[in-house]
């Protein structure tokens, strides 16, 4: 059975590395992009089953990424947002922006794995 592919989009390289190791331990195939632009490029190059997305990033932030994702990727993967204190942008909640789930920082590894599993079991990005 092929491992599920997860793309981590986060500008913090150290956190990306640790997240990747955590997910790899769980059997996922993990790729890393350090901002929204890189993330979209990575998805265009190779599809992923799920995206773990940070919000505050240079060049293209997480919100913009969510807005552009359906325009750039034909069948966008579900997105789990890893957010700090943010729960709305421009009057819209993250749920309203079609995310598969949110994980509040600091991430509890068990909760993250559970959320990922749930999102993957639910399939592609809702609304598509």
């Amino acid at each position, binding site marked *: 059975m092929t491992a599920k592919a997860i793309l981590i989009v986060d500008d913090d390289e150290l956190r990306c590395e640790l997240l990747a190791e955590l997910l790899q331990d769980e059997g996922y195939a993990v790729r890393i992009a350090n901002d929204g632009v890189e993330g979209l490029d990575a998805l265009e190059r190779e599809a992923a089953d799920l995206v773990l997305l940070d919000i505050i990033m240079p060049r*293209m932030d997480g919100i913009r990424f969510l807005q552009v994702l359906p325009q750039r990727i034909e069948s966008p993967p579900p997105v789990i947002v890893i957010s700090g204190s943010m729960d709305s942008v421009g009057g819209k909640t993250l749920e309203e922006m079609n995310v598969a789930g949110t994980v509040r920082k600091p991430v509890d590894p068990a909760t993250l794995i559970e959320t990922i599993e749930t999102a993957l079991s639910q399939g592609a990005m809702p609304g598509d």
Partner: protein
Amino acid sequence: MDSYHLVPGLLAALLAAILHFSGFFQSTDGSVFDRLSVRGTAEPPAVTLIRLEEGESAGALVQASLALGAERVVFLSDPGSGLERLAAEERERTVIGFPAPRLSGSLPSELLAAAQRQEGELVRAPIARPVAEYGIHRSQNAWIESEDGAVALLETVAAGREPRAGEYYVPMPRSLSFAQLSSDQLVSAEFVEGDLEGMTVIVARPEELSGNLLATPISPNLAAVSRAQFAAYAVQALATGREATKSGNLAAVLLILFAAMLSALAAILLRKRHVSATIALSLCVFAGVAGWILLESAGVILPFAGIWTAVALAWLGTIMFLERRKDSKLESSVVGAIEQTVSHTAFSNRDNLPALLVATAEMVGIERMLLVRPADPLSPNPPATFNAEVSDFAGDVQGELARLASHLAEGRSLPVRGLLPGWPGQVRLRAIGYEDKPLYWLYTFGDSPDAELGEYIAASLAQSFVTMQKSHASLSAQQRGRRAVDPVDFRVVSAIGLISRNSRQLRKAIDQLNSSVMAFDVVGFPLHASPQMVDLLEASGINPQTALLSEIIENLTELTKGQVEALLRDILREGGEASAPMRQIAGVSATLRVSCPDPAQATHENIVVLEAFDTSDLARLSDLRGAITDFIDVQMRNDLETIALAAALAKKAAGDKKRGERMIERIVAASQAATDRLNTMNDLARNQPATRDDMPHPIQLRPIAENVGQRLAEFAGRYDVQLDFELPAVSGYSVGDPVVLARMFEALLRLVITDSPQHSTVTFSLAEDETRSAIKICGGFGMDRARLGQAIAKPPRHDIPEFLIVSESARALSSWGGEFAYDSETGKGYTFQLSLRRIA
């Protein structure tokens, strides 16, 4: 009008009446009578003068005269024989004068007996000299007192009519002349019957016609009228009813009083002095004209001089009284104002001034000083000293001081050499006395390098000292219970000078406050506004000169009109203060405070003070706190997450030593990253002066740009320009000050918008990479780059404030490690680029 304003008029009337009855005005009134009477139109002569020739028969003369139609024949003196043969009827019409010894006292009995009129007998009447007033004979008595009552004098008997009063005035018109004939002419029948019809014939000896001449109104400077001629005038006046009498005492008093009251009322009611003076003068002219008419028609002589004097004195007295009252009021106001102004200062006691000068001199760095009055020898106890004594002087002190003083210009100082050899530095002399009280101030700043600067302060101190002394000298006389030497006008000028000086200084003091303050009269009219308040009001579109208190509060705050009225009502009734947050004006957050003293304490001297506290600093501090909290929240969550992840992985790596060590390294790295971020924050917070307005801190640029966009939407709409903002959905953290950046963004956008063609677009874009945040503003018509550079480098301060804001903000930006660049070309538009450090 207060009734006692009429007191000067009453006094003037009283004085004029007293002078009138004391005869003081007799000469003046007589002169007036003379001028009026000599011009009068004469009736035809009713008297003929006959010169009684030597040897002529008096009886024949009487018979001839009566035969020619004469009414009466009057002999000024007894002709002796010749009258015995006259018939009884002729005798009754013949009057013979006999001299009355004097007018005062009673007629002696023998003369009285002679004057007793008996039927069929000659009429004998006493003849008296006319009454002289200051040498002028213009009046005559009608009768003389006797033991049996009044006996008519010759003229009265001759005229056959008595005047209205005991003394009557005789008009002597120049145009009236009496025929003078000799007895020969009359007796020799040169005349026909009827030539003397109805006339009184006065017969006089030649010496009575030429001797004993009198000065009369006709010839006031020359004794030219004979007694016979005067009698003729008198008889003419009585016979024709044209004699004049003085007005009665009561009438005179009433006339004088009436005239005085009219004059006083004119002075009281007509504020303009020249108008009331004209009225008074008109009253005098009117009295003259009325008097003339009355004299001509009724033969009454008005008390002209009394009336004129009463009018003049009443006007003058009333004016002086009113002036004095005004002066008194002014004076009391002045004293009150002075006391209010200076009661809390050394002014109330001039003796304190030297002590104050010493205290202030010490404060400003004067090392030694002496205040001396020139005297020989100098007083060992001069008015003021500081670190000095009179014994410090050397040489010819008086001579040297006098020599220096002669070269001293007002307000200037002179260096003094040799006079105070023991004093350090340069000793200088100033004259700080006034008028005849010279006072010399000798001082030195010692060897202080600031001595030259101190000269300005010394000049200011000296000027203030002199001013205070002058004001005190002029104003304090009354305070000391003495009658002031200066007229009130001068004291008013001094008081105004002092008060306005104090007022000016207070205004300056208010203006120096780094606060927006405005004082209002309790009615709500503005009294004074500090420059900051003026700027604030003008920025809000309010005219600080005319705006009312309620309008200002309503305009500056979110309070409704009703709320403002309620607030002011409470403040004015109860005193105290109230505050309300102000609308944000020009990016400034402020609180408006209205305060008013307790009316019970301040009585009618209440004022209302409006103060705008700039709470931008508090808001900025709050923003800073919020930004740092957000930043720490976000970043620390990241770092803690990293550590938590590494710890979880390390736990899972039990037995895998290599992995465990790697995780520990990651934990250390995450901890180090967190520490670095904290250090960055520490640097931002501590490496800048706490008072700096533009202290940078972590900020998110998107909300700042959004706010600016909202503020400028209407402005852009007015120019028909579209604003296009390209912003990230979420900003990271950049280093800067939100207020400065907001002002800069707004200024740049305004510049571009105002120079944009209609229907064009101005773009504002924000792009953030890992280390920098870039802002780019594009659009507009553009101008020559060099001109733009010049405008930013040397901004025109008043014309376009945006350039000044951009220039100042660019400097702040640079101090945060940011960059500002611009490009522009006419017709191609502007490009402004800002770059800020970004916190990763």
